[in-house]
């Protein structure tokens, strides 16, 4: 019988509306007791005085790049980076090589993740075979093998009929269909947000409308089908308006927003003079959109935060802005970026902050965790709200360093991650 006792923590658990100083006893990997004072002889004790203990953070949007692009990231390196970022579980997108459009690839990912023994990895299967947008992939086989959702992320689902059928078919399994909303004909070779900054920089713009027209289509199709629709990395004001509308109609529509879309604007491309670590898709938007995203998080329109962790090799990013790939890493900066932004600057209650990173993702994707209720799996994140550290990409456990936050001093960092009652990662003291 293994026992872990976390003492003097400020326990924050949105699933129980809990925010108080408690001890937490974990027995055999599950939460056994929460009380003001627990003494347990023989238990491993963590003194968490001054720290917050929360249900483990879950990132529902990660690119682990394996199989196929192991030079960018592997399942092992990505899962280790997740732990170091405070995440006990991640959902990985299927745009690998081969694409995760079959039970075989789903099983491969799960096996690799088990071998790695780091964060839990939940595969997301492809909507269409090869993500080619033409035929449905074997959703049921993938769900049996452990897929928790389907998505053609990285590529939009262009074909409205395919999207309709995917939503309908998903009803058989009750899993969410995750869409990367983008009309490529409106993107038209754009590389950053279309607006005053793209005009000034002479870069082709991606209009907000390229995302919004597909969000609107998807919401309408969610109404038609009654299926669970999750909209990935939303970045514009109108997109959130469509989510509000869907929710007011009682549709099963949810959405996520990334830390970089909340913390940065398109002027970063100007200020950094074309630094490709500010190139991602969807692009960093203008201040007006960023303000709408912040509001959407604060008013509850946004269901969860997600990293869209997209590792790329330094050589790939060392190109002209037009030629560099889209995407930034996020696992090891997401928590401090959003803690600093929401809890410190916008005074978001801690229970809401934890819900955005843990309870809500668990609920939306039907994952274990997201709670510290007695009997639930003891995946936990310990946070130090006072730790003030600069982002140092050289210390990342991810194989890639393509972060837009290098050098930023942020307050509120994860200090330990606990997986199934075992401390699997601790921040080194400096």
């Amino acid at each position, binding site marked *: 019988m293994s026992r872990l006792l976390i003492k003097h923590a400020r326990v924050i658990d949105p699933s129980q509306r809990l925010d108080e100083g408690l001890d937490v006893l974990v027995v055999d990997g599950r939460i056994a007791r929460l009380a003001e004072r627990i003494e347990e002889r023989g238990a491993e004790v963590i003194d968490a005085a001054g720290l917050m203990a929360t249900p483990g953070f879950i990132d529902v949007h990660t690119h682990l790049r394996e199989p196929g692009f192991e030079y960018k990231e592997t399942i092992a390196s990505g899962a280790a980076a997740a732990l170091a970022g405070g995440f006990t579980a991640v959902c990985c997108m299927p745009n690998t090589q081969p694409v995760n459009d079959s039970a075989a690839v789903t099983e491969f990912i799960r096996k690799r993740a088990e071998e790695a023994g780091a964060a839990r990895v939940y595969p997301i299967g492809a909507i269409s075979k090869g993500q080619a947008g033409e035929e449905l992939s074997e959703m049921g086989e993938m769900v049996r093998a452990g897929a928790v959702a389907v998505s053609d992320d990285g590529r939009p689902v262009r074909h409205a009929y395919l999207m309709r059928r995917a939503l309908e078919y998903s009803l058989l399994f009750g899993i969410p269909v995750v869409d990367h909303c983008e009309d490529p004909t409106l993107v038209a070779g754009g590389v950053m947000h279309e607006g005053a900054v*793209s*005009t000034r920089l002479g870069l082709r713009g991606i209009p907000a409308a390229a995302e919004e027209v597909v969000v609107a289509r998807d919401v309408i199709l969610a109404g038609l089908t009654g299926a669970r629709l999750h909209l990935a990395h939303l970045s514009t004001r109108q997109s959130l308006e469509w989510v509000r509308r869907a929710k007011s109609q009682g549709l099963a529509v949810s959405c996520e927003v990334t830390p970089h879309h909340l913390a940065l604007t398109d002027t970063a491309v100007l200020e950094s003079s074309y630094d490709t670590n500010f190139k991602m898709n969807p692009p960093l938007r203008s201040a007006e959109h960023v303000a709408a995203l912040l509001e959407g998080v604060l008013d509850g329109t946004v269901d969860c935060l997600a990293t869209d962790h997209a590792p790329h090799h330094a050589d790939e990013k060392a190109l002209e*802005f037009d030629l560099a790939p889209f995407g930034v890493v996020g696992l090891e900066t997401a928590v401090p970026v959003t803690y600093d932004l929401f809890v410190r600057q916008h005074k978001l209650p801690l229970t809401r902050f934890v819900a955005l990173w843990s309870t809500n993702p668990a609920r939306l994707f039907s994952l274990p965790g997201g709670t510290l209720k007695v009997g639930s799996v003891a995946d936990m994140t310990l946070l130090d709200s006072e730790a003030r550290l600069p982002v140092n990409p050289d210390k990342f456990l991810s194989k890639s360093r393509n972060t837009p936050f290098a050098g930023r001093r942020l307050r509120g960092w994860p200090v330990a991650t606990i997986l199934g009652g075992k401390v699997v990662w601790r921040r080194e003291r400096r």
Partner: protein
Amino acid sequence: MSVAPARRLRGKDLVGIDPLTAPEIQLILDTADEMAKIAERPIKKVPALRGKTVVNLFLEPSTRTRFSFEMAEKRLSADSLSFSSSGTSVEKGETLLDTARNLEAMQPDFIVMRHRYAGSPHWLAKLLKSSVINAGDGAHEHPTQALLDAMTIRRRLGRLEGLTVAIVGDLEHSRVVRSNVLLLQRMGATVRVAGPPSLVPAQMEAMGCEVHHRMEDAIAGADVVMMLRIQLERQGKMNFPTVREYYDFFALTPERLRLAKRGCLVMHPGPMNRGVEIDSRVADGPQSVILEQVTNGVAVRMAVLYLLAGGNGEPTAD
């Protein structure tokens, strides 16, 4: 002009008009006027850049700008070599950064660069010790073009401040318009731009210029009309219907030119599409300064090279 010239340029590079101050622009224009005198001498060469090496790295086709830089380099006695993307390692898949680092390893003093991707000279300028001169980056900037345009206007009309300059054409794909808007406004001119709404980039008015859709509104009463080349090679069929219809609405014809101020200058950065954006009667007419622009281009590029090499505005004292 009310602006006193700077004593020297602050940066090691000329990546755009954006980083330049009005006094720096003034210095370049004053220096270019001096450089222009060299071309009028029987021996059109000074030793100002003797022993300096210039690499002309043209990764996008260009004739006029490359020849103009080469001419400027020769008149200043610099050693220069030019290469374009065909027949070089760029076509074998070498990255721009590696190409530039290899060139730099040969220790040139200047890299004059033309590339189809915006921001590439800015990126290289940060990484290289050589002075980088932007000879056009995508749809972003073409600083020496704007400088030669300003020089031409100034020599003809005596000033920039207080003038109204209309720039008409494909605004979206034009680096010339961006550099000109920045330069002319910084020097106190008013800039109006016009083009089909489908070729006006988003929120262009944020650059401070007036944005018009009807060409007539932009050129009415203007001191200068600058026509932009319709980049037929960059257009699909979705930006405007046909060349024929474009001519109907956006070509500078003698009739339209009458809307501008009497004696208004007609400019074009070249190469022209005659009968598309400009009528030959205007291009070859008495108000056209299009060939003077080309002449002044050499002088402006001499001035830029000279000043970046550390000169202080008195080139002929040597």
